[in-house]
C-alpha cells in the first residue's frame, strides 16, 4: 500500500481532482437543465409539461454507459460522416460533462417538479391575491419553500452523480476508476489500489454530505 501511495499517489490524487471537476461541471449544467425542465413541468401549458415528460423519459430510459458511448463515439462520427463537418471534435471531458449534465438534469427535473408541486397551492394563491405576478410569487414564495424540501433529495442526486462519473471511465476520461485500472495494470496490486480508490470516493462524499447538512440547517425557518 505504501508503495502504491509513494509511486502512484500523485496520479491518484490528480484523478480524484478530475473526478471532482467532472462531477462539478456535470452538476452545474445538470442543475440548470433540471431547473429549466422542472419548471416546464409545473406550468399550465400542456406543451411545456409534455416537453419535460419526454425529456425525462428518454434520458431515464437510457443507461448512462450507452449515453456516454453515443455522445463520445456516435455524435462525432455522425457530425463528420453525415453532416460532413470534419473539424468537429469532442474530448472526453466535454462528452463526459454532456452525459452527466443530461443524466443528472433529468433526475433533477423530476426532483424540482415534485418539490414545487409539494408546496401548498394556497401559497401561490395568497401571493397572487396580493397582486404579485406569477414569476415573482414563484421566486419569492414558492421556490424558497420548494428548495428546502428538495435539499436532501438533491444532495442524494449529487452523490449519485459523483459516483456516476466512474461510468465515464469507459470513454477514457482519466478519473479515479480509469486511473485505478491503469495502476492495477502496472502493479497487479488490485486489493490495495481499489481500497485507496474507495477511500478517496468516500472522502469526497463525506465532505459533500457534511456541507449539505450545514446548508440544510442554514435554510431552516420553522424552528
Amino acid at each position: 500500500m505504501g508503495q502504491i501511495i509513494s509511486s502512484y499517489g500523485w496520479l491518484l490524487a490528480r484523478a480524484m481532482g478530475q473526478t471532482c471537476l467532472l462531477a462539478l461541471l456535470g452538476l452545474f449544467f445538470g442543475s440548470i437543465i433540471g431547473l429549466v425542465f422542472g419548471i416546464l413541468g409545473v406550468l399550465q401549458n400542456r406543451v411545456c409539461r409534455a416537453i419535460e415528460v419526454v425529456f425525462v423519459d428518454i434520458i431515464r430510459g437510457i443507461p448512462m454507459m450507452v449515453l456516454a458511448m453515443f455522445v463520445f463515439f456516435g455524435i462525432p462520427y455522425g457530425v463528420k460522416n453525415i453532416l460532413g463537418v470534419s473539424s468537429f471534435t469532442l474530448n472526453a471531458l466535454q462528452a463526459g460533462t454532456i452525459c452527466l449534465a443530461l443524466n443528472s438534469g433529468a433526475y433533477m427535473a423530476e426532483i424540482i417538479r415534485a418539490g414545487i408541486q409539494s408546496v401548498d397551492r394556497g401559497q401561490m394563491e395568497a401571493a397572487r391575491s396580493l397582486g404579485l405576478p406569477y414569476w415573482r410569487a414563484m421566486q419569492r414564495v414558492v421556490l424558497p419553500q420548494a428548495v428546502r424540501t428538495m435539499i436532501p433529495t438533491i444532495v442524494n442526486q449529487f452523490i449519485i452523480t459523483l459516483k456516476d462519473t466512474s461510468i465515464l471511465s469507459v470513454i477514457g476520461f482519466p478519473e479515479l476508476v480509469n486511473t485505478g485500472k491503469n495502476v492495477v495494470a502496472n502493479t497487479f496490486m488490485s486489493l490495495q489500489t481499489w481500497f485507496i480508490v474507495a477511500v478517496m470516493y468516500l472522502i469526497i462524499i463525506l465532505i459533500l454530505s457534511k456541507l449539505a447538512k450545514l446548508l440544510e440547517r442554514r435554510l431552516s425557518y420553522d424552528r
Partner: protein
Amino acid sequence: MTDNRAADKRAAVKIHVSDLRKSFGRLEVLKGISTDIYESEVVVVIGPSGSGKSTFLRCLNRLEEPSGGQILIHGVDLSDRKTDINKVRESVGMVFQHFNLFNNLSVMANLTLAPVDLGRASKEEARQNALQMLERVGLADKADAFPAQLSGGQKQRAAIARALCMQPDIMLFDEPTSALDPEMVGEVLAVMKQLAALGMTMVIVTHEIGFAREVADRVLFMDGGVIVEEGTPQELLQNPREARTADFLSSVL
C-alpha cells in the same frame, strides 16, 4: 341608518356581477350569479357546502377564471383581456380558510413583501405600515415570529393584516374561521367587525350565522350554484321566504 347607507350605496357600486358562470369540466358550479355590491357594504354569503359560494368569491379576484358572465371591480371588467389582473388584485384583499401565510417568511416579511415588491412603499414605509396593521390586529409583538410559531387565530389575524397592508378597498373572506379551534374564532371575528366598522367593503363566505346577523348589511343564500335568496339579516335569517333557505338555517342553527 340602514336606509341612509342604502341611499349612498346606489352611487358607488364596487362590485358588479352579472350572469356569472363557472364550470369545472362538465360540472357547472355557478349557474348565473348576478348581484351588485356597494361601497362599505358588508355582504355575507351562506349556503351548504358545494353550493358554489367559495367559487363565487374566488371569481371576484379571478383566482378562478369565470366561464361566462361579467364581473366589474370599480368598473374594471375582469374578463377584458386588456385588464391587468395584478393591478386589480392590489386593491382587492383576500383572506383564506387556511391562512396561507408564507411559511418561509417572518410575519413582518409576510406583510411587507407585496407592498415593497410592487413598488407601493419603500422598505421603511412598508415596515411602519405593517407595524400599525399588526397593532390593529393585536399582533405587534409577533412581527419577528414565523408562521409556524403562531396559533391558528394569530395566523388568521396576521393574514388579515397582510391583506390590509396593500390598502385594499375591498376585502374577500373565504371561510376565515372554518379552520380555527372554537376558542380562536372570536378573536378573528372581532378584527373583522372592527374592519366593517371602519367602512371596508367586505364579501364574506362563512358558516358563522351569528356573525352574519350582527355585522352583515345583506346576506346571500346560495345553493346549487345560484343565489336562492338575499336580504337583510333580519329578513333572511328570521323570516326566510324560500323553503331551501329555511331548511339550511334549521340545520345550522
